[in-house]
């Protein structure tokens, strides 16, 4: 009897009902790549909190005695052409990339999910108008648009987040709309309508939670892509202005000294790559976990 009880216990343990996020986390745990990505991300977030202890003056302090020193025990990433400690600058710069990545994605996510859900749920004329506007906005070359906004309102972190966030709203509109369209036909939506739920309630308690998977995946890789695009803009001089050590700007600042001091461009670029890689790996893992079509 006892062995049978244990067996039952094991079975109930194995098939214990998990919450939705518990389920997602469980499938991520099995995916090595996703775990590595998650670990790198945790390290980056810790770095971000550690960087709050670095004062702006320590990070911008120049030292005539230590100009363009190669990486050593004293200066982990070496120093730049003004003798500034590159390690401190790269660590300090994490906040810009994190702010841009999360900020832009938050803007485009909030706007895109709201508008996309309305568009997909109501259909008809509303849908048509929204999608034509989205067509127009997504035809604007995003980079040029960001450059113009940065010149018009001044180069700052906030303007960059705004410009890049707005230009990627259509992407989220399309994804949300598509996933709402697939969920909308289900019986449980019809049931909610029959009970008399308001459209708003149906959208936000029934439709979106069930059509969440593609949105989560897009968000994860989207943060990485935004960080990369922002670094690119800073690289050509349209980003967060110096002396703020935004990573793209740091890479750019080392260009002239590429031959004699390659580490000035090297380490910030490596930092960008690691962050984007972490988001891509996590996104891949989430895709495996959430997309039943690709489940192995």
């Amino acid at each position, binding site marked *: 009897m006892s062995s049978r009880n244990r067996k039952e216990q094991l079975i109930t343990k194995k098939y214990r009902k998990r919450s939705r996020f518990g389920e997602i986390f469980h499938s991520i745990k099995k995916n090595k790549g996703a775990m590595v990505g998650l670990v790198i991300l945790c390290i980056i977030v810790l770095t971000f909190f550690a960087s709050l202890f670095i004062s702006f003056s320590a990070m911008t302090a120049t030292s005539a005695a230590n100009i363009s020193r190669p990486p050593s025990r004293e200066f982990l990433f070496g120093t730049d052409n003004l003798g500034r400690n590159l390690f401190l600058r790269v660590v300090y710069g994490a906040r810009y990339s994190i702010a841009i990545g999360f900020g832009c994605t938050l803007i485009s996510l909030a706007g895109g999910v709201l508008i996309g859900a309305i568009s997909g749920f109501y259909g008809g004329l509303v849908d048509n108008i929204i999608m034509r506007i989205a067509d127009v906005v997504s035809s*604007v070359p995003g980079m040029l648009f960001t*450059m113009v906004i940065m010149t018009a309102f001044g180069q700052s972190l906030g303007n960059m987040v705004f410009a890049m966030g707005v230009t990627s709203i259509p992407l989220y509109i399309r994804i949300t709309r598509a996933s709402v369209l697939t969920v909308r036909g289900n019986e449980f939506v019809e049931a909610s309508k029959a009970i008399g739920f308001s459209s708003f309630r149906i959208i936000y308690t029934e439709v979106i939670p069930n059509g969440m998977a593609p949105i989560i995946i897009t968000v994860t890789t989207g943060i990485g892509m935004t960080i990369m695009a922002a670094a690119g803009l800073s690289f050509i001089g349209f980003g967060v202005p110096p002396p703020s050590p935004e990573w793209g700007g740091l890479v750019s600042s080392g260009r002239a000294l590429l031959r004699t001091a390659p580490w000035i461009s090297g380490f910030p670029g490596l930092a960008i790559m690691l962050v984007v890689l972490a988001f891509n790996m996590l996104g891949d893992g989430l895709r495996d976990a959430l997309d039943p079509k690709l489940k192995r």
Partner: protein
Amino acid sequence: MVYYAIKRVLLLIPILIAVSIIVFLLLDLAPGNIIDMMQIENLTQDEYQELLRQYNLDKPVIVRYGLYMFNLLQGDLGKSDYTGLDVWQLYTSRFPNTLLLAVSSLIFGSVVGIPLGIFAAKRAGTLADNAVTFITLVGMSIPGFWLALLLMLQFSLKWQWLPAGGTEGFRSLIMPTICSGFVLMAGTTRQTRSSMLEQLNADYLRTARAKGVPEKAVIRKHALGNAWIPILTTIGGALSFSIGGSAIMEAVFTWRGVGSLAVDAVINRDFTMTMGCTIMTTTMFVLIQLMVDLLYALADPRIKSAYARPKIKRRSAA
């Protein structure tokens, strides 16, 4: 299909109107104008006013926008405020360079990416597959401009094999192609791998093998033939993306394309040039997307039928 193409081209009109209004207003908000940027010394107040008149800067925004659009409708993009050169001529002289770089990185990306994707899909789950997957992940995460600097350091500064910049000859094309094609290559590999995997498990492949079709033909004709569309989508999206976002690569390699033209125009507060670049790049962007969409229709008859002119609505039975 012609109907569809016409519809898409007509959609270009509201797009251009919206884009031109937005960019015009934003540029008007930008602090500083072309006269400040020219940095003429000893400018008296009268001369300053005269220059303002000359550039129409004394008129309200809406009048200037009207003038601009009036000229645009006659096919006149105006002359650069900064250099005085004709915007249309300058743009069309630079555009082939951008297109060349975009197409060559596209070719690089597909020639390497598609076979690599097939290779990985055939060995799904093995070490080789995991290695390819990891390489493509890294490839998608490497910032192009950083890769460019690394290659430059090695091939131009240390070994002096390739020029570090410029737009002359085949040798100057190699590094920009690799750098902007690298992300594309990674994306194509991933897409090829996943859509091949979908096909490799399909029943018709088993049938094909069972009836004795050689393995090479099974992969190339049967599987790839059906895996083609998503791969094309990735490549097509990348083409319009690299036209719109060419500025960074062009800046690193001092490649004389339209991206760097636009960047210089924005930096110099060159109103006419920026407007011209925006309008032209948007147009190219839309037209290339349209061309790619029409190519799908050629590749897949199912899509072709979806583009067909909608018939007069039949009354539904219900």
